């Protein structure tokens, strides 16, 4: 047991010189706010930070998201500002999408690949000015950005641990913004990005629609995050605005078919064998690849894959019963043999829908949209391990 004096001394040490504790999980700049909202006291760890998993119940949160408006803490995301004369050339080199074509205020979600075409992460890129860009992603990539910047005249600033992020989504978001005195920015709910000063606080608003649900993300300095949260909460009081946890955000993500790193695909640098990670085409970003664009990371490999066809493709599944665990294999009868033709990588029970949904990959040679595949679900029922056979339908295959 540590005595009070040493505990205090430890507290007073600057953050960077504190002894590293591998088990230590950091609070986000919004922790004080989210801990009040997190009535269920159900937390989860995200990129080394704690965020609410559930604030109330999944049913109530999904209802807020799909019928009213909801707010969530996005602070653990990676956040990078890129500026300089070569910024557009640099990003064009780094990312799959045609970046130089974006106008000021445009936003795009694009894969960031290794030279073998395998995805490191998905990055949301917003053009804030002629030479100023804002990048966010679920993961940390400063080292990779730094390496990629060799030979380009760009300035990279990593805001990942000093800035906070708030997701605002739902059909009533425009009303929330207007009530919070951000009426000028309601267009961003549908598209675009902008950096503004909101009553003395610099905030960056970036469109972030998830599936059918309109929304945006708001980024600001960590020290001012609580004020931004309060202003939005106060403004949205009459619009049914509620804080939601990560589970609700994940449900929405899976339903909208957006793959996520660490859940649907292994970011390439983390894969022990490179062929276990996924290419940009397999993840459904074929439409972003522009042959006319010059060299970008993964160009040759992706063009080759486009010509030869991919083995796997991202697919959306609808399950007959409860959602199986992530990582469940999907089978198909071929003659007498039972062959594995897919895997469900992330699943959700989707309380507001009739059937459970899942994202995953299927072998393109064997599966067509509308096919019904077999799932073997293992679960514990009344303290017993049981196996039951169910079926799932392939709703959609990307590309």
């Amino acid at each position, binding site marked *: 047991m540590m005595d009070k004096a040493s505990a205090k001394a430890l507290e007073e040490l600057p953050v960077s010189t504190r002894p590293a504790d591998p088990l230590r999980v950091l609070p986000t700049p919004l922790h004080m706010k989210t801990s009040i909202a997190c009535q269920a006291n159900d937390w989860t760890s995200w990129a080394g930070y704690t965020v609410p998993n559930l604030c109330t119940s999944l049913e109530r949160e999904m209802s807020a998201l799909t019928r009213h408006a909801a707010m969530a803490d996005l602070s653990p995301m990676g956040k990078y500002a890129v500026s300089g004369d070569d910024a557009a050339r640099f990003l064009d080199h780094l990312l799959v999408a045609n970046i130089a074509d974006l106008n000021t205020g445009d936003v795009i979600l694009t894969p960031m690949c290794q030279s073998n075409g395998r995805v490191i992460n998905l990055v949301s890129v917003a053009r804030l000015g002629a030479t100023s860009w804002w990048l966010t992603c679920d993961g940390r990539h400063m080292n*990779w950005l730094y390496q990629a910047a060799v030979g380009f005249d760009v300035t990279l600033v990593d805001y990942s641990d000093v800035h906070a992020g708030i997701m605002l989504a739902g059909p009533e978001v425009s009303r929330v913004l207007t009530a919070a005195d951000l009426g000028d920015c309601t267009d961003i709910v549908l598209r675009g990005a902008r950096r503004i000063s909101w009553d003395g606080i610099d905030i960056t608003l970036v469109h972030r629609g998830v599936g059918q649900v309109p929304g945006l993300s708001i980024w600001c300095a960590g020290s001012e995050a609580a004020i931004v949260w309060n202003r939005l909460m106060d403004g949205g009081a009459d619009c049914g605005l509620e804080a939601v946890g990560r589970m609700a955000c994940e449900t929405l993500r899976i339903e909208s078919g957006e793959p996520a790193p660490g859940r649907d695909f292994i970011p390439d640098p983390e894969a022990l064998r490179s062929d276990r990670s996924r290419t940009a085409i397999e993840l459904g970003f074929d439409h972003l690849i522009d042959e006319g664009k010059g060299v970008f*990371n993964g160009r040759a490999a992706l063009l080759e894959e486009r010509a030869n066809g991919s083995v796997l493709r991202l697919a959306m599944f609808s399950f007959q019963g409860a959602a199986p665990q992530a990582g469940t294999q999907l089978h198909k009868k071929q003659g007498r043999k039972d062959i594995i033709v897919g895997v469900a990588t992330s699943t959700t029970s989707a309380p507001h829908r009739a059937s459970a949904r899942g994202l995953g990959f299927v072998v393109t040679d064997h599966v067509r949209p509308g096919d019904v595949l077999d799932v073997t679900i293992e679960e514990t029922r009344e303290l017993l391990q049981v196996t039951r056979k169910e079926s799932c339908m392939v709703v959609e295959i990307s590309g």
Partner: protein
Amino acid sequence: MSFLKNILARVGLDTRAPHGSEAGHASFDVIVIGAGHNGLVCASYLAKAGRRVLVVEASEQAGGACQTGVIGGDTRGSRCAHLLRGLDPEVIKNLGLHRYGLKYAARTMPTVALDYDGAHIIFSHNPWQVAESIKPHSASDAERYPEFHKRILQFAEIINHWNGQTPGRLRGLFETGAFEDLSADAKALQQMGARFDVLTAEDKAEFLRLFVSSVGDLLDRSFDTQLLKGALAFDGVLGRAAGPFSPGTALGLLQQWTGEVAGTKPGIALPEGGMGAVIDALTRSVVARRGQVRCSARVAQILVENGRTVGVELASGERIFAPQVVSGTDPKTTLMDLLGREHMETRLATAVDGITQEGVTAKLNLVLDRMPKIRGFDPGQVPSARFIVAPSLDYIEQAFHPSKYGGFSPDPIMEVVFPTLNDASLSDHNEHVMSIIVQYTPFHLKEGWDNHREDFIQSCVDVLGNYMSGLGDHIIGGELLAPVDLEQQFNLRGGHWHHGEPDLAHQAMMRPAPGISQYLGPVKGLYLCSAGCHPGGGILGLAGKNAAERMLKDRVEPLRTVRSAHKAHHGDDEVEAAEADVSYGEAAQ
């Protein structure tokens, strides 16, 4: 020389056609950037195979670091590289360099490890003779030497075999990471090891150990005599930013011993007329095969259209088109400056950016009014040899230390040659040239080179004065070429003789950098043939030969649609003006 003039005139007539390009047509099959020895070897091989070759050289004179020039008064000498230690015999034979005028002034030069008391150790290709000169220092070392000599030569033979080949490409490890490519990598490595079969089990183990160990460790295990160890270690560290106890320097020793001259191994030769004579012979061999060499034509940019190389743009703005471009300038300059960062993916650009290229070797050329007296040799009996000042391993290590921190040692290690002893053509007034390589001279001197040149020269002369009495009184002229000068005058980036540090991480399939090998550039139609590629520096000519073989193997796609014609850009007048500057190899003579 009239036959040569005839050839030149004929080639000159042939090339009166505009060497720019009409839309859709390239005037050349290959453009070689840089008329250094590797560029010219590559050009000559390609021309021999019937390709229309143009060599463009930035300087007024061909040769790069391999040239003869005025070093003081009327006296001429090899300004940069000064000895031939293994210009590949196959290259000489294939290109007929002797036919084109390459002659040796001396072909089996011994190496003299200078001893303060005059008990020099004299190395030659005959190990028993060497043993005789070791005897006064240590009888047991003298007994051990022949075995050591034999073993190092045997190992050097394996290195020599690798040098002549294009190393495998480790795609799995450095490019794709895919499983099937990793298995192919394993096979490529296995193939390299196939050469091991000539070694006994014990020698195999020793060879692998040598590959990664330091020359200091190797020599400490083998001998007791400090002078012997110092002289042998000198070869291990020559041209490298490494001390005798740095890993990988044992490999340096093996690489220096691979050289063969006229059947002698390890061979050291002095070309008649200085190192420029090698370039002259190579230039003649290119021109005789209807190739062209243009000097004062600096390439500003390698032109890329639709993901393939289409030619080069010169600093003058002139564009020359060809479906293949091969660069004899160093890989970092070629890829980062001439090709451009935007044509490389991140992993490759990082690897190229990571090439260490700061030379630590200076050249001091002195003109002497007469030969100095060398301790231990009778006046007038000084042999034509390569003299080494490196009395012990500790001495070398001490000389190395300051260079790491931007300083130079007051006691440098040096290699000295008196080319005028064999080659009277270099001096008209019976003067002597003293050609000195000074190792561990930093590129960035902490206090700047401007005010410390004299101190540097003085410390070199002082150290040499210990072995050559009154040396200072005989100096009547000369020049110091520190690494910064080598960069400026010879277009050697970082003043690095090897176009990139030949450390263990940049050898064979990892040379010039992991992910770029087999002489292939990152863009179709672009090739590399400089010392920055396998097998590395020294006047070997093998990078040029291997690159040419690689290029001849690849299918050449003709330039069907070259959109930008030269005339459209510059008009007829400028084409003619550019033609007036053309020199067909004559500048090199």
